[in-house]
């Protein structure tokens, strides 16, 4: 028999990502939220009046909207909105090149490997630290083609027309409590505009990190792919380990105009005291494709249901996700596909693994509106349970108001088969190696869609999480 290593998962997280450098913010609002603070944030940023209006509308809806009654109400109701810092400005001005970025922030990102990744693979990179983007660059040839890749605050200044035209059109301030909160206090995030027919060959990347404790991070991302354009966007997230909890509540809106293609990749590895409550939604017009690749490894509670509204004939949506819940974690993730036009197609593939007393839940919706003839949708959810205390739930909803459709759903929940283990071990693998191999095979459909360096990273993260799983 193989030895059974006892590993505290958080220990590894601390060493790799849990570091924090002393906070040195230029401006830190008082904790808690009221209208004055919302005005203060907008004022500090020198925003146009319409954005302040939008923020105030968001604030009012946030105060009025009830907490969601699903997922994990105990955890949700334990969030202390009054002790959260809603805005932190880490440095006075945004650096143009890596050298301009203050030393302690640079140190943070060096440890995360950002500039190296940029040099090697990435077309553009934007890193968000606390609330605002501190560093941002993009290859010249993309700039020449008219691709705009800015942090959201700069975009509001430099591309006011584009921002105003699309901001909040997919996820309005009243959408849900956390989208309302984001609308009122958002800061940073990415703005991408890809002009007609331009295909961005290499992925654009952003990295988000929370450093201060009790900090809320509310980035706002808006991606517009004009007709026939193509873009892939990747974001990663981490936070140091503090004893008190942090809140991450992003809003991401994607707009794929006719025949455009957007692929959005997230690997979420927040530390295990972050509430990750985000709203992500896309609109796909005629012939357009939107793909969400969503990896959830970190956080205490994640509630995330990326959606695609298929609004034009032949639009296509795909969500491919992996969730890993270790002890003390609840990953409540899923997908929404709204078929509102004929000949639309959607595929949802969800792979989840729960370990220790971790809990994974798939929660999804496939809605076919009357008139969306020949719509096709396939949903497949597979769950692996590694321990007796693990829990796995599946809550899919299918609402079909059109006859000429093909809608299918399948789900399985199981543990690693003894025969599988026996087979691998009879070929000379130890039990942990055999389990790792089976888990790798289980998440393979997701991993093979990732860019190489992310696939390597994800495999390594899963390996870390898997340590101590035997027994």
């Amino acid at each position, binding site marked *: 028999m193989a030895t059974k290593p006892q590993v505290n998962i958080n220990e590894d997280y601390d060493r790799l990502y849990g570091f924090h450098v002393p906070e040195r913010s230029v401006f830190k609002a008082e904790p808690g939220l009221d209208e004055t603070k919302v005005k203060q944030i907008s004022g500090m940023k020198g925003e146009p009046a319409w954005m302040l209006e939008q923020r105030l509308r968001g604030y009012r809806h946030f105060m009025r909207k009830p907490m969601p009654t699903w997922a994990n109400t105990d955890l949700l109701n334990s969030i202390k909105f009054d002790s959260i810092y809603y805005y932190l400005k880490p440095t006075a001005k945004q650096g143009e090149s890596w050298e301009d970025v203050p030393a302690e922030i640079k140190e943070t990102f060096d440890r995360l490997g950002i500039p190296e990744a940029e040099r090697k693979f990435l077309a553009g990179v934007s890193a968000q630290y606390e609330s605002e983007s501190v560093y941002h660059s993009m290859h010249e040839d993309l700039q020449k083609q008219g691709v705009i890749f800015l942090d959201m605050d700069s975009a509001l200044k430099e591309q006011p027309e584009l921002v105003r035209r699309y901001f909040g059109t997919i996820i309005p301030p009243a959408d849900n409590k956390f989208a309302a909160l984001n609308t009122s206090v958002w800061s940073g995030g990415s703005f991408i505009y890809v002009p007609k027919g331009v295909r961005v060959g290499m992925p654009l990347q952003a990295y988000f990190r929370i450093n201060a404790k009790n900090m809320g991070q509310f980035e706002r991302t808006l991606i517009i792919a004009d007709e026939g354009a193509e873009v892939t966007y990747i974001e990663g997230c981490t936070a140091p380990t503090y004893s008190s909890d942090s809140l991450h509540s992003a809003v991401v809106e994607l707009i794929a105009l006719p025949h455009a293609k957007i692929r959005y990749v997230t690997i979420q590895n927040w530390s295990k005291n972050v509430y990750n409550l985000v709203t992500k939604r896309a609109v796909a017009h005629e012939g357009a494709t939107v793909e969400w690749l969503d990896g959830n490894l970190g956080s205490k509670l994640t509630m995330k249901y990326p959606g695609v509204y298929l609004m034009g004939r032949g639009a296509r949506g795909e969500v491919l996700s992996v969730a890993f819940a270790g002890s003390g974690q609840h990953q409540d993730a899923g997908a929404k596909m709204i078929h509102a036009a004929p000949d639309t197609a959607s595929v949802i593939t969800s792979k989840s693994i729960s370990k220790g007393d971790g809990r994974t839940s798939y929660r999804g919706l496939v809605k076919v509106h009357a008139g969306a003839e020949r719509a096709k949708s396939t949903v497949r959810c597979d769950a692996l349970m590694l*321990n*007796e205390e693990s829990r796995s739930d*599946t809550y*899919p*909803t*299918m609402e079909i108001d059109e*006859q000429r459709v093909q809608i*299918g759903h*399948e789900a399985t929940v199981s543990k690693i088969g003894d025969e599988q283990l026996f087979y691998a071990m009879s070929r000379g693998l130890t039990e942990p190696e055999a389990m790792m191999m089976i888990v790798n095979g289980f998440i393979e459909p997701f991993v093979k869609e990732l860019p190489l360096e992310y696939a390597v990273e994800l495999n390594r993260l899963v390996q870390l999480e898997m340590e101590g799983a035997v027994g």
Partner: protein
Amino acid sequence: MTEFNLTTIDQTARRLNEPAWLIELRRRSLARHAELAWPHPSDDIWRRTDVRLLDPAQGFAPTAPELLARVALSDAQLASFTRPLGEERLIVRVNGSFLSPPPAMDHLRVEELGRAAGARPEAIRRAIEADGLTDAEQKLASLNLAFHHDDVALTVAPQAGPGAPIRLVRIMAVRPQQAVFPLTVITIGAGSAVTLIDEYVSVPEAPGTGAPHLVNGRIEIVLEQNASLHYVRLQRLDLHAREFLLQRATLAQGTTLTMTNINLGSALTKAHVMTKLVGPGATAKLYGFVFGHGAQHIDQHTLQDHRAPNTVSDLQFRAALQDESRMIYTGLIRIAKAAQQTNAYQANHNLLLSRTARAETIPMLEILADDVQCKHGASTGPIDEEQAFYLMSRGIPRERAQRLIVMGFIEPIVQQVAFAPLQERLRRELEGSLSDGG
């Protein structure tokens, strides 16, 4: 006018000559109903049906004793509902009374609940107590427990051999706006094997008025150790009926239940079909078929509740929907931590036969044990054009080809009915009611 209050409870209980504890349970249930809130629309299990339509306080009247005496059924109607299928043991109840004294049969006792509650209080109390029901379920089920009147206890003694199938036909002749509360408690003794067909028919006295009537039913099935039951529920309510049904089965160690629910009638149905596997090695095979037509609204919830190790459940619910009918299926497999080595399956397939039919399906899993095999599948779509084309290329006209395909869709469920003459009748009935053109 009679109302849903303590006076009605006392009248009903006195007429049925019930023991004190059962009357007390009725009274407590009414109080429970009053203190519970109606299900909230944010609850996924309830949001798609307007539960107020099932509230007797919205203009319905309880069944007064004088109504029971009047049977507005013609001999021809009665004969058509009670025509034997084959060699079954037939028991007929009309408006809460046995048509003829229940036959004295070996090992089988069929009696009114009040009598059983007097003779075996603990067993009956255990069967009908509300344990494990949600507040929302209790809101409606407590009405049945308060006002049940057409109630039957069917008890099979231990170690009884299979014998001929038992067929219990319940005929309810109802007036406009009447509310009826049938309750059935079925107990299969240890080691016995039985086939039971449980049929519900409602006949409005004045069908022309279009007024609804309310049927709030409850069925409790208890399988004692190593018992085996083939159970078929045939719902033939009138198309003006609004139905709430709570149907539960409790499976002890080593039991096998094969249950088929066939829904042919009612304007609106909200049915909760729940199976509790409480003993190791219990097996439940659960099948259901809904034939939706007209403006029917059928909301079907199922629960496969695995509480013991080595249990197996296999569920398959199918719906064929024509006209403007609407089917809602919500199903949950719940596997408790103790229920290791469990195998659970759940499938819901909906066939849309018209452009205005609708189907919603929410198959859910909550798994707290790790050493399990658990799967579910759901599909919704129209008739497969390739299949229709194949049949048409063999010279079969389109209408007939469609009917054949629908019959093929229904067949896996019909085949689970463990009584060949009933299978035959169901096929004939279903084929006859499929409208041409689809």
